[in-house]
């Protein structure tokens, strides 16, 4: 059942509201014309960015695009335990595990794909990861030219140009072994 409410008497005087709103808009416009931004410290001008030349940078805690971390030797840190994929509410992570020839590694992902269009940026993957292999970084632009570019693979997630060779994971297997764990 839907309720139909008649607009109240107060709401029928909408012209007042419109004039108030337009007043704010025009006063800001005139202020921006008179005072130019950036000239003095206590500028009254509104701060805007000249996107895309200037981009806002979020703090490191921002939940933006995913990053797969790497080990000290540059190989991928992920152990393909699938906890992120299990925890993902949007089911956007797809991992294929394989057996590694290296006895100390044993299991590693041969493919790790994130469908960024399905991702809801909740950060549960980051929380689930036992070895700090996946993080959500400060990057927030996900625009791309065609559909396949929205499916991020290992090459993009771990070694894209912005990461400058990869971000090193905080959990190091060798150090843990030395500590006797």
């Amino acid at each position: 059942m839907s309720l139909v409410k008649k607009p109240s008497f107060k709401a029928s005087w909408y012209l007042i509201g419109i004039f108030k709103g337009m007043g704010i808009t025009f006063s800001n416009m005139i202020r921006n014309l008179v005072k130019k931004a950036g000239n003095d410290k206590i500028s009254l001008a509104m701060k805007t960015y000249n996107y895309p030349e200037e981009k806002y940078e979020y703090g490191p805690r921002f939940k933006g695009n995913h990053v797969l971390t790497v080990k000290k030797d540059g190989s991928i840190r992920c152990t393909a335990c699938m906890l992120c994929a299990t925890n993902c509410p949007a089911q956007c992570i797809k991992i294929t595990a394989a057996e590694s020839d290296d006895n100390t590694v044993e299991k590693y992902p041969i493919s790790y794909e994130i469908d960024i269009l399905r991702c809801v940026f909740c950060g549960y993957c980051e929380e689930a990861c036992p070895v700090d292999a996946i993080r959500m970084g400060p990057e927030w632009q996900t625009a791309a030219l065609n559909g396949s570019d929205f499916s991020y693979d290992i090459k993009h997630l771990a070694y894209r140009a912005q990461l400058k060779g990869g971000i090193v994971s905080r959990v190091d297997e060798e150090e843990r072994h030395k500590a006797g764990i």
Partner: protein
Amino acid sequence: MLKCKINGQDVEVAEGSSIIEAFKATGQDIAHYCWHPGLSVAGVCRLCMVEIEGNPRLQIACNTQVQEGMVINNNSDKIKDAVKWGLDFHLINHPLDCPICAQAGECQLQIQYMKFGQYDPEMAERKVKKRKVVDLGPKIVLDTERCILCSRCVRFTDEVSKTNELGIFNRGDHSEIGTVDDRPLDNPYSVNTVDICPVGALTSREFRFQQRVWYLKNETTVCNGCSTGCSTKVYFNEEGMWRVKPDHNDDVNGYWMCDEGRGTPRFVNKDSRLLSAWNGQKDEGQDLEAGAAAKAVGQTLKKVVAEQGSDKVAFVVTGQYTDQENRAFLSLAKDLGVKVYHWVNNPEKMDEFDGLLIRGDKNPNTYGLKEAMKEVGVGSPWSELESSVSDLEYVVVAGPENHFAYSDLTDKVDLFSKANHQVWFVAGDHDVLRAASNKVSLIPTKTYVEKDGTYKNFEGREQRIRRVMTLVPGALSLTEASKLMSGQELLVDGNVSESYRKTNFFSSNERGYL
């Protein structure tokens, strides 16, 4: 019978049963690693602790016999404390590599830890490092660090497979499971040790890292690998079948199954299957809808029989189909008046038996087929087909779905190529069939996990198989194919009579542990 009380519940058990068996009879939870119902009692894990009234010390349930009037509980604080510390000792040298462990999700140690543990470790010493990823033969990988020395696998090779390969070596915290000089553990039942391993020490090379177990659903069915007909559990997801495990059935297989039977995903999964019907000759032809192809074959067969006589057509059957399918197919043959021949894949090995489970007859339903042929009143000796095949217009073959057991497939295709046409109802896609020199029609059939029906095993025991999943949507069961061939329509009424098929497997709540 002895009466006893377990956690306040009265239960009667047979004389000589252990307390843990009484627990199982009531269906109550009790932790146990080393005890397995199919093996002897070892009493080494010390986790099945119970408190018996009148006994000052805690006892292990697996090695204590029930006495008349015993009052037993395993839910007091004293027990919980004992189990917690027992678990702590098990975990002293256990590496915490659950993320890369193939057992995670169905690991008893994980389940137990979530129930009783959840403490910070109090061990100040370093963990003892042992060998990891030890190659233990073609089917098994051993990780000695994860092993908790329950000795189930050792007892299995001693008592069940009687091959005695495994043993526990060294002493104290350096003890580890292994084989002498790392000889391979390679017997026809070796993967059972993986099933009974409560932790991830023994893992199957085939299933390792393929899928996380919590993504898989399971359903009980009957193995179609040989005429023993073991009860099995198939593990599957949307992509297909991933592994097969034995299901407990005292009348047939106990707790075990052979390694060969675990290979059924090889011929069930989509990548080895015939996906649509095919008409052609020497690798050139066209794809068709399975139902339309079956109908067309039926019409031509009727025409050939009417115009040239029923001795121009022959039906060939194998013991790979269910009773219902056999009856439908044989009745069709009888209606047409054509002769039916039974293709026996390995006649010299048919009666072989290794004393435990494996039988030489690699068909699940040879018994049922013979019975159905007698009942319907068809069946002619194979030698007759061999001599008369070149005069035939049509050979209609209900081919094998497990083609790994049919090593004579190529020979038989060559034999049937002498006739003018050959029609194959077959689950797998075989190059030899497509390359045959005469005209070939291939019609895809369902495998044993995609249809309902009954198998009769070597002793005539009727066992039901059920539809678990659909892998090839167009495939027909032989019953459906026979119906179409005889000119009837397949009526899809949408009414599901079997209760277990009303639920959607992928939306039910049962999703494994964790």
